[in-house]
């Protein structure tokens, strides 16, 4: 046999397939079907890691996902995974794992000094010690984080793929133990679509390990048959290696499926993990229960393990973790473990804290020659890196004192069983209410949420036959309620377990050789190194609420979320506070139920899929012509087009001058466009915009401002009347969706009688905006239609053919130049663009980006909603009273103009600024202050909203929102910069260029 602790036969491992792996650099071997934990135990390695705070040697406590101790660093480099639970890692060829939170090695760990000083490191130590001076916290934090840590996160990008999946079914069953299998099969036979998930590779749950019988079959055989039938049914989806991680409102369950984690250097194209989002009409929880540790002195050494876990290692993995075994228990059920271990050759002593045991148990011990210490406690354990001996002593009737002498017993494996805690975490997440059950001394489901069932030991039902009957009922009920009415005969005839779990009293702490608050190490939470003494301390210091105790002591935090510790902590609080556990209550359970990778949560929403890029029909041309892109919402817009050695400033200056001197071209396709039709369209626009629309002629364009109900500007754009009852609205690029929703909201909720339909047509049209003195000549060379100033004056639209393509030509201008916005169907966009560029060569046509557009419009004093406005500016604040109708009875925002604050004088108002030094381009966002002092705070009277160097004017220009700005023309203002300089500027009008508008109107 390759492994010292491996049994010659038995278990679900495949002894024909040898697996090589490394732990802390040491080459080891295991078998197919092992977990890292079972393989380590097979190799007699009990010391796996160091504890979080005191760096105490720790081993493997459990065999499941609740494992608090055996956390390892799995793999190397980019694929390394910290805090992986050895009990959950399936062994694969080439696996490498190492202990974490220890240096230089798990055997010789410097941090273990903490253990010697543990008396001065109680709960709250960091809070109390590192408070002063506050400025030093950042310094302390570095060392604290270094000292107390879990594993290391990978420093490289995760190379694995993670996928997600939405899934729907009638019934989801969480947990494929015998109860889950029964419910799933019943629901499936009744015709329901069923999803069955289980976190283990092997379905069957705990009873894969036990000597129980169902329908007179060995349970393993029954499980095999049932799984086989389920797998064959078309209406059933079975997912192993899949943990339900979250349970939200209306039976929305999330689950993490591990797909290639257990495969060596997988070349599979399957994702590593798949995150399932499951919505089912019914959910049945069958997650079983966790065995509860006992709180006694020195209960954390390697070689101390949960009794049922030892049973799992023996029966499922063929590993006997120790030979001289002591079992410390408070209940009958654990005796079955002793029997199993004895049958594999171990010598077992039982220490039972109860005063009496039943006749049945007494006989069992006689038959199996088990030595028992009844009414005894383990008061002390020894062994530095693995347990070597224990000390037991008889307890008085009330368990509060000792009688008799202490006895030391050599042992290499100490098992503990304090009863069972139903796995109610997921149930509690679903908002199900719990109650404390005195018989099993744990919380069980009380009030269910709708369309839910909890079965088996998850529900506190530990009687095998009864729980299977209930599971059948639950499966049938769920199927019936989802409309699957086929009758299903009850297929559970009989079931029994050799020793049933009936009752266990919770033991707040077991009397030790030292008083519990004086240096004894009664661990309650193994992962966070919380002892019984810490709970006492928290109660003494007033942290008596369970939520406070949790946070003060960290009980129940971290990767295991207190699955082994919570109930013991609550019981101790109950003992100290002298009130029932049910009244102490429990902390809130939150997702995820088990640790979950960020990769799976992100899925494929990474890299280019993190946020979509919206592209126009001209996008490739922009790339080919060297555009630098700017993100505007999700759109990619050309920012500027640098020639080989140009800086951004040089490129923008060149583009600005070309647009004013000859002709520039801009891809304006991203502007929002909404087609508005209906007899009430003009009436509708009158209410939406601040200005009047009734008299707009067919073919005419008009600029409009939209305000929200508060009278604040929220979008602007040009709307054109295409026909009698037909308008084409444009919006800002970023505001398109918001405006569309705004229009629909009013049509659908306020103005139901209005006959108007709105349809988004943003992408229907590719928009080429050409501007500059030569733009008419250029366009004339591409169309046979008359586009003269008489035929197509400023603010008019004409339908014409451009380059043989149907187009709408709008004479509108955002640059102040003669300008045409050519709209063509997107499919012809690129074709027309190419033709315009080609024909424009003789005018030195210059493509320009958003930055040049911003400069050109700023020279004209045109606002950009969202840049010059921030949701707190009225049209009047923007110096745009001219666009607010005085005659209209109503429009959105009008009422708010009357509010005192909106109507008052001296609000922040839009002004132009000329920078006095004629050269500084003040950063946008800079503050204008009343008086400059050496350092902030300075009283602020405004801020810069737009600021550029104007190549046309040869000096910088800026716009600002300035208190009482309208009345301050000519004032000198001061703008302190981050670098300490102070810039002076003169308040002016915000139109800097061609005030008369001759260029655009020409």
């Amino acid at each position: 046999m390759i492994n010292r602790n491996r049994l010659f036969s038995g278990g679900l491992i495949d002894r024909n397939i040898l697996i090589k792996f490394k732990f802390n650099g040491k080459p080891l071997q295991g078998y197919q079907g092992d977990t890292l934990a079972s393989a380590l135990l097979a190799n007699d390695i009990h010391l796996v890691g160091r504890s979080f705070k005191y760096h105490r040697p720790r081993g493997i406590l459990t065999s499941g996902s609740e494992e608090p101790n055996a956390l390892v660093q799995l793999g190397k480099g980019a694929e390394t995974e910290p805090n992986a639970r050895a009990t959950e890692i399936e062994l694969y060829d080439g696996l490498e794992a190492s202990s974490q939170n220890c240096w230089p090695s798990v055997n010789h760990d410097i941090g273990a000094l903490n253990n010697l000083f543990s008396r001065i490191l109680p709960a709250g130590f960091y809070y109390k010690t590192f408070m002063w001076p506050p400025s030093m916290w950042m310094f302390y934090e570095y060392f604290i984080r270094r000292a107390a840590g879990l594993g290391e996160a990978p420093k490289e990008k995760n190379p694995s793929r993670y996928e997600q999946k939405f899934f729907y079914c009638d019934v989801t069953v969480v947990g494929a133990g015998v109860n889950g299998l029964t419910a799933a099969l019943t629901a499936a036979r009744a015709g329901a679509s069923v999803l069955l998930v289980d976190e283990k590779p092997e379905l069957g749950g705990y009873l894969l390990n036990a000597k129980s019988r169902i329908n007179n079959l060995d349970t393993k055989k029954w499980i095999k048959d049932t799984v086989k039938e389920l797998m064959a049914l078309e209406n059933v989806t079975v997912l192993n290696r899949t943990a339900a991680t979250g349970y939200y409102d209306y039976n929305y369950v999330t689950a993490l499926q591990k797909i290639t984690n257990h495969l060596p250097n997988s070349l599979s194209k399957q994702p590593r993990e798949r995150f399932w989002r499951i919505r089912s009409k019914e959910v049945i929880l069958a997650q079983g229960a966790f065995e509860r540790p006992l709180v006694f002195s020195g209960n954390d050494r390697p070689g101390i393990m949960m009794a049922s876990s030892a049973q799992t290692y023996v029966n499922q993995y063929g590993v006997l973790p120790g030979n001289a075994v002591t079992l410390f228990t408070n209940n009958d059920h654990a005796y079955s473990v002793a029997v199993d271990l004895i049958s594999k050759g171990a010598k077992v002593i039982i220490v039972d804290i109860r005063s009496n045991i039943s006749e049945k148990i007494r006989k069992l011990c006689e038959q199996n020659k088990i030595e028992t210490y009844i009414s005894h406690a383990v008061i002390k354990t020894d062994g530095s890196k693995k347990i070597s001996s224990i000390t037991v002593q008889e307890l008085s009737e009330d368990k509060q004192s000792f009688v008799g002498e202490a006895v030391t017993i050599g042992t290499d494996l100490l098992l503990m069983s304090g009863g069972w805690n139903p796995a109610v975490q997921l149930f509690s997440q679903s908002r199900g209410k719990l109650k404390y059950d005195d018989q099993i001394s744990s919380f069980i489901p009380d009030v269910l949420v709708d369309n839910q069932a909890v079965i088996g030991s998850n529900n506190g039902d530990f009687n095998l036959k009864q729980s299977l009957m209930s599971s059948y009922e639950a499966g049938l009920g769920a199927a019936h309620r989802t409309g699957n009415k086929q009758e299903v005969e009850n297929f559970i005839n009989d079931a029994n377990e050799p020793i049933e779990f009936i009752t266990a009293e919770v033991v707040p702490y077991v009397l030790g050789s030292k008083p519990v608050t004086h240096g004894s190490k009664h661990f309650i939470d193994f992962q966070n190194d919380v002892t019984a003494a810490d709970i006492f301390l928290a109660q003494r210091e007033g942290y008596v609420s369970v939520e406070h105790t949790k946070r003060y002591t960290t009980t129940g935090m971290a990767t295991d979320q207190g699955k082994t510790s919570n109930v013991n902590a609550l019981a101790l609080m109950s003992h100290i506070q002298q009130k029932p556990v049910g009244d102490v209550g429990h902390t809130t359970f939150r997702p995820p139920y088990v640790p979950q990778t960020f990769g799976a949560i992100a899925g494929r929403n990474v890299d280019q899929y993190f946020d979509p890029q919206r592209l126009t029909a001209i996008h490739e041309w922009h790339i080919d012509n060297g555009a630098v892109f700017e993100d505007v919402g999700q759109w990619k817009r050309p920012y500027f087009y640098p020639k080989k050695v140009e800086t951004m400033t040089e490129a923008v200056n060149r583009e600005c001058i070309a647009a004013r001197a000859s002709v520039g071209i801009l891809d304006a396709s991203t502007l929002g466009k909404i087609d508005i039709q209906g007899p009430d369209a003009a009436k509708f626009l009158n209410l939406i915009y601040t200005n009047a629309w009734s008299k707009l002629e067919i073919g005419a364009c008009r600029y409009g401002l939209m305000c929200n109900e508060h009278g604040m500007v929220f979008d602007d754009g040009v709307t054109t009347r295409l026909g009698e009852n037909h308008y084409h609205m444009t919006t800002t690029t970023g505001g398109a969706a918001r405006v569309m929703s705004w229009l629909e909201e009013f049509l659908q909720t306020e103005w139901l009688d209005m006959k108007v339909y709105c349809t988004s047509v943003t992408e229907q049209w590719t928009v080429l905006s050409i501007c500059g003195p030569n733009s008419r000549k250029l366009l004339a060379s591409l169309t046979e239609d008359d586009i003269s100033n008489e035929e197509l004056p400023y603010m008019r639209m004409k339908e014409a053919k451009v380059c043989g393509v149907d187009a709408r030509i709008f004479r509108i201008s955002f640059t102040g130049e003669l300008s045409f916005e050519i709209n063509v169907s997107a499919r012809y966009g690129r074709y027309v663009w190419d033709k315009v560029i080609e024909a424009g060569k003789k005018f030195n046509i210059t493509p320009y980006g958003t930055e040049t557009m911003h400069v050109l419009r700023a020279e004209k004093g045109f606002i950009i909603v969202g840049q010059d406005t921030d949701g707190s500016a009225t049209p009047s604040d923007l110096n745009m009273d001219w666009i607010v109708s005085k005659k209209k009875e109503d429009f959105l925002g009008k009422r708010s103009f009357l509010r005192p604050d909106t109507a008052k004088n001296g609000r922040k108002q839009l002004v132009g600024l000329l920078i006095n030094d004629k050269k500084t381009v003040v950063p946008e966002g800079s503050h204008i202050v009343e008086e400059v002092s050496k350092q902030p705070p300075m009283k602020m009277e405004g801020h810069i909203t737009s600021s550029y160097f104007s190549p046309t004017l040869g000096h910088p220009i800026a716009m600002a929102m300035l208190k009482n700005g309208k009345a301050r023309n000519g004032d000198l203002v001061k703008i302190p910069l981050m670098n300490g300089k102070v810039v002076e500027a003169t308040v002016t009008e915000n139109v800097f260029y061609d005030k008369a508008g001759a260029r655009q109107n020409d």
Partner: protein
Amino acid sequence: MTNPSVDSPLIKKDEFRANGITIVSTEFVGKLNFRCFSENTLILSKIKNITGINLPLNAGEVYGNNEFRIQWLGPNEWIIQCANDEKLNLINNIKSELAQEHYSITDVSDYYLTIRMSGKNSNEILSKGTALDLKSYIFNKDMCAQTYIAKATVLIDRLSNEPMYDISVRWSYAEYLWEWLVDAAYEFTE
């Protein structure tokens, strides 16, 4: 002047095939957004006269014949699909027949581009990105739905119970969606 050439982000895409997946872009067809009050029986009968099919009135219904396919978008909103060169005729017919009625018709033929996905693993791909329940007894042939695939809004039209879908997506998101679908099919590639 030469004939204007058409272009789109999907035109250049080669058909994508993987195990049980075929993804192709479809040719341009006429797509008209049509809106009216669904209880206006006059409009309903006129549309029936013009297209030969009724406007579907139940959520997610699609009616079609050899010439037209009408997708339900909302209680007062549809898309009428027709052959590319029939589009102007159809618009003009509707305009002249419904002259006095309150309705709207808007050309959205280029607003949406359409990706056709078929093959037995199509649902596996789609269920990675859409919250729609694609089971054929719930979302069956001749049903459509407006929803998300990943982060793009789409109109999914199921063409047959063997998985085959026309996925209409806004032009600006077409490149993103195509790449996303191909990426989602990775586990089915050779």
